């Protein structure tokens, strides 16, 4: 039965009101067509292109334009963005807050990216902190976290998490040797801090809808870090156990919260890790291929069972 006939039927039975039926029938016919998503994509692409050009122009013409002109221009743009956001924003609330306007989120994002460009220019030209990028990254991450939670903005929260990851990365870059092991430790530390901070903020009722952004990033970094340990030829046992624990936690969390991206992480990362160990202990092409067929079928059966029980809807 077409949706229009269903709506008429529901209206006649009093399931929906005549006003609802009129509205929903129109929507199902595409009347009106919403271009909300398209406008958001245009704004995002516009901000991205603008900041790309800004960074390119500043770096190319720095000598001709001079520090004063460049820093003044960037500061004016930055101030204008933040003035717009602080003057237009609704009062802060720990719950999800809708943007006051379509462009609001993108002005804030433009401001955050302009801050990054200005900071990078500042340090490269004036060397105030003698090349200690760590401090810039940490301060940027802190600012972006504050802005993200003040204005309820996922773009800026992702920037903050990215800047924080950069801070961990740059700290590692000072280590002269054994970088792989150090990266791994810092990766795990980063993911635990990010995952823990997200969980604590969510538990405290501070923008709990942003938890997914924290956890997705934390989970991916954690899995990459642990997998890099599993790929080691020696002393991979502890990493293998860690991988199994991470997979179990991710699977349980994904099923409990109906966040199926975590089920997918557990399945894919877990399979890659286990297979890498098993395959290096199997001799012969036939045995390896048999392994993949048998374990592939086992994974498929398990995933179908999960899909049928928990993840029915598209």
């Amino acid at each position, binding site marked *: *039965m077409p*949706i229009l006939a269903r709506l008429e039927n529901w209206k006649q039975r009093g399931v929906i009101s005549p006003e609802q039926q009129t509205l*929903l029938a129109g*929507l*199902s016919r*595409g009347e*009106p067509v919403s*271009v*909300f*998503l*398209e*406008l958001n994509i245009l704004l*995002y692409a*516009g901000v991205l*292109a*603008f*900041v790309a*050009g800004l*960074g*390119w122009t*500043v770096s*190319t013409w720095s000598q001709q334009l001079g520090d004063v002109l460049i820093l003044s221009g960037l500061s004016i743009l930055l101030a204008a963005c933040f003035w717009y956001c602080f003057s237009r924003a609704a009062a802060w609330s720990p719950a999800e807050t809708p943007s006051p306007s*379509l*462009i609001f989120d993108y002005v804030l994002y433009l401001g955050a*990216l302009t801050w*990054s460009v200005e*900071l990078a220019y500042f340090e*490269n*030209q004036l060397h105030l902190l003698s090349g200690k990028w760590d401090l810039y*990254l940490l301060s940027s991450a802190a600012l972006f976290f504050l802005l993200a939670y003040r204005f309820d*903005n*996922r773009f800026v929260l992702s*920037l903050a998490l*990215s800047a924080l*990851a*950069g801070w961990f*990365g740059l700290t590692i870059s000072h280590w002269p040797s054994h970088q792989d092991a150090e*990266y791994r430790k810092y*990766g795990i530390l*980063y993911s635990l801090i990010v995952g823990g901070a997200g969980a604590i903020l969510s538990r405290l009722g501070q923008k709990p809808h942003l938890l*997914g*952004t924290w956890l*997705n*990033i934390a989970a991916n970094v954690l899995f*990459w870090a642990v997998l890099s340990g599993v790929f080691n030829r020696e002393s991979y046992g502890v990493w293998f156990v860690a991988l199994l624990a991470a997979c179990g936690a991710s699977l349980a969390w994904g099923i409990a919260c109906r966040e*199926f991206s975590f*089920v*997918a992480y557990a*399945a*894919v990362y877990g399979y890659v890790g286990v297979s890498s160990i098993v395959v290096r202990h199997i001799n012969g092409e*036939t045995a390896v*291929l048999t392994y993949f*067929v048998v374990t*592939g079928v086992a994974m*498929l059966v398990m*995933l*179908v069972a999960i899909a*049928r029980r928990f993840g*029915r809807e*598209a």
Partner: protein
Amino acid sequence: MKAYSGADEETLRARNLLKDWAGEGFLTEAQYQLMERETVCDLRRTNVFLRAVLFLFTLIIVGAGLALFFTVFLSRPSEQTTGFFLLIFAAASYVAAELAVSQARLYRYGIEESLAVCSVGFLCGGIGSFQTSEYVVAAAGALASLWIWHRFGLVYAFLAAMIFVVWLPGYWTSSHAAQHLIVAGFYAAGLVAVTLTRPRQRSIAEALLWLGIYLAINLRIFSIGPDAHWWGGVKNTTEFSRPFYWSTWVLIWCLPPVVLARGLRKKDRFVMAAGGIAAVVTLFTNKPYLEWPRHTWDPMLLGALLIGIALWVRRWLASGPDGIRRGFTAQRLSGKDKQWLSAGSAALGIASPHAVALNPQSSPEVRFGGGDSAGGGATSDY
């Protein structure tokens, strides 16, 4: 001819719409529950993540199964033998996909999709093993992909068919101009066919074909970006005759407004998006076409233009009665739009700064932080 009946797909559409409307608050929870119970469909679906993982593991099983068969039963087979068994595997995969739909009632479940994709891959491999002309492989791939699209409604199979078509003219002529024209001609013929037959996924197919025609006639498509030479694009224009070159330049300016206007007239979001993408690509490739130098502020102007257009459109729509003008509105009407934005903003927020905010070593005198200052340790370290 279709694997799924029209009634089943209509029911699925109804369920999707109900979910959307409930997410956007047009229905109460109680209304949604009742209406959902009355919109039952026996097709089995799953969410996008499980679908992707099921697709992957089916691919692993089928690929490993095929390799195991060749290892165990055939030692050093001739090409003909290999081709013969690949064709058998293609048929087996296709039959399995059909059974997964007809018996297990799978719908966009990953498993049946993977089997169908494998059948196309094995078919191409099998035909290729018989030392036939290579264009036969591409033609068979295109036809098989079209069939999979028609039968199962998988949009990416249509895209695969379009990609197979790109390989065809290379076997017929060495003239690059003729190759571009043949590909554009194939897509144009496809467009006519799609417009006349009006299949269920007409909208996306039409958008892909418009985009395909545009890309086929844009001779500077690979000059996008500051490091265009990495793409191996057209480095000089002498391989094309001047009339042909400038005709395509005229066309890349004419086509986007035509596609955009058609999308607006039909109120088709996919065709509108194809027109919009083509318009932006035209702005990107115009200077390389004219062989004018690029300026560092060009992306800024483009960004300002895009932002300006978005704001003007929003303001124009908002000034209409109830925020609606000519059947369009800037208001959000679907819960799915919100989900897309949430997921997209989180993912793109991480990805974009590396490429944009602090592009490394753009000039010798100023060296920004190599992308690090907006983050990067998490992705580059492992």
